[in-house]
């Protein structure tokens, strides 16, 4: 029983990370109908830049803040100079474009930092906490807290503020939004900024628990996308729930079947889901439309 709970706890933590990636995908997709396949690279950069800045003797907090700002900036620049440039491109070109960007970022990261893995100091001590026999790393609690805060803030932004309404307006009908004086380009840039910032934060909080290296982005990206599909590509809440489910399934699979197959499980879930119900567990309004 304790073993089972332990696996569920581990799954919740990794599921939280997938949730942030998934929400990042959805934020950009809903505004600009682009799936940003470089999403995972934002996480990688968040962790790696923080490690590098701490290596330059910057204090932890400042390094993390600078890393978040830098990745946000990269997101904005990517939208402004690359994605916006090929606005009228067909979906195949957009896929190749974001694949190209993610490959480029990964290559540059391996060029700068090499292929070694780096670890970050945990925010609080290394000592795990025992909850009724289930051991939880203190960093895991930080991760879950960060995930919940990000999800809450995003929910508040999207549902309760004028800015969120503008973003939603662009996702529903860009033409009508433009007529109302909202710039879809600006909103798309904002969406890239949000997903850059949240991705970087996620990358920083996971770096102490699982080491970070130039190529962690690919796996995190696909798993986040799997969660987004599972939950329904237009539904952030559904995606977050699906991400936690995926994390738990993966952790149980790793525990009871084989740890080597851990990553394959997420992908099998993805392919299976695409077969049975591509609109996701919680349904989605716009499957097959827009950029797809």
């Amino acid at each position: 029983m304790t073993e089972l709970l332990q696996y569920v706890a581990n799954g919740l933590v990794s599921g939280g990370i997938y949730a942030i990636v998934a929400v990042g995908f959805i934020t950009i997709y809903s505004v600009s109908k682009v799936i940003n396949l470089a999403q995972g690279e934002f996480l990688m950069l968040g962790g790696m830049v923080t490690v590098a800045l701490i290596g330059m003797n910057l204090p932890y907090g400042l390094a993390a803040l600078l890393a978040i700002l830098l990745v946000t900036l990269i997101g904005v620049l990517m939208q402004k100079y690359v994605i916006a440039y090929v606005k009228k491109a067909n979906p195949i070109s957009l896929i190749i474009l974001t694949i190209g960007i993610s490959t480029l970022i990964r290559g540059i990261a391996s060029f700068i930092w090499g292929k070694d893995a780096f670890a970050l100091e945990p925010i609080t001590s290394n000592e795990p906490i025992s909850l009724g026999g289930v051991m939880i790393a203190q960093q895991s609690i930080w991760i879950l807290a960060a995930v919940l805060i990000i999800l809450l803030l995003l929910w508040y932004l999207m549902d309760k503020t004028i800015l969120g309404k503008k973003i939603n307006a662009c996702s529903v009908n860009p033409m009508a939004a433009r007529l109302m004086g909202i710039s879809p380009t600006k909103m798309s840039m904002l969406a890239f900024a949000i997903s850059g910032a949240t991705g970087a934060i996620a990358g920083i909080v996971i770096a102490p628990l699982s080491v970070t290296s130039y190529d962690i982005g690919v796996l995190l990206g696909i798993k986040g996308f799997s969660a987004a599909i599972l939950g329904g590509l237009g539904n952030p809440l559904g995606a977050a729930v699906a991400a936690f489910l995926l994390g738990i399934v993966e952790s149980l699979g790793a525990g009871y079947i084989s740890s080597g197959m851990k990553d394959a499980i997420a992908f099998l879930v993805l392919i299976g889901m695409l077969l049975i119900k591509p609109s996701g567990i919680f349904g989605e309004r716009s499957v097959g439309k827009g950029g797809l």
Partner: protein
Amino acid sequence: MMKQIIDKWGKSIGIYLFLMVLFPFVMPDEYYRSVGIIIGLQAIVTIGLCLVMGLAGQISLGQAAFWGIGAYTSAVLTTKYGLPPFIGLIAAAIVPGLFAFILGRAIAGLQGYYLAMATLAFGYIVQIGITEWEPVTGGANGMISIPQMTFFGGSELSMYFLIWGVVTCVLLFSLNLLNSRVGRAFRAIHKSEIAATSMGIDVRKFKLNAFVVSGMFAGISGGLYAHYMGILDPQPFGLHESIKFLTMVVIGGMTSIWGALVGTILIGFISEGLVLLSEVVPGLQGDVDTIVFGAILVLFIMFMPEGLVPRIRTAFEKGQAKKAKGMAEEAQRKQQVERKAAT
């Protein structure tokens, strides 16, 4: 059929054959011949990928997985069960074809991002599967002493001609496909699936066929690769290689079979150049080629989405049209002068 192709592409085929036969004699160095062999193996894969991307308008980010399945199928059959490489190669075409059929059937209704991610995920599953299925595939350590092919003595030169012979077959097959009713159907699908459907084209079936053919091409190439190298490990069959194949098709021009070939040769030499460069420049460790491929993908989609070969062809045709126009004007002027002289 053959006549039509020769009518349409005779000149290109002639140039291709000439350069292909000439290459190993201009470069008598064994090293460059082996580079030529590897490029030929990749060309078989990219021509197949071009059928999927350029004609069916679909994307596959898991082409290296089919390549790997082909390689391991032939390697396992010949090494563990003692079958001759020829039988292994047939299996190397069939098994990935079956995988492509099952996967393709499953995801034939998917488009764009969904298909991209599904094939990406498939690629990962295959690589993980190869690594984990240790009793058969040797796991991360890989397989050794896979029987070499004894084709006209099995020298580097004979291997070169064997592999480029296969490239030529694959090329002619694909050109033929492009030129047939099937090719026209593919182009219709690429332009508008809805219009194609309303014209009675079974879009799903065509996409599936393209996917299966591309899987089989990749498998054959994989089998040849296994017997050429003599050793295998799971490392080359991952995302990195799939992206390399993608870059090759994009740079040459997604909608052109010749583009896939030209792109493969270009990227092949760029990769070789980077390897040589990294030996001279000490700071160039890491994945320099990853940076180059990523940059090529981004720049081409931004500034030359149609790719090199269609771009050059358009420029050439424009030049020809201009020349023809100039000649016509010249003749007209001459005529006028003559008429004036007569009056």
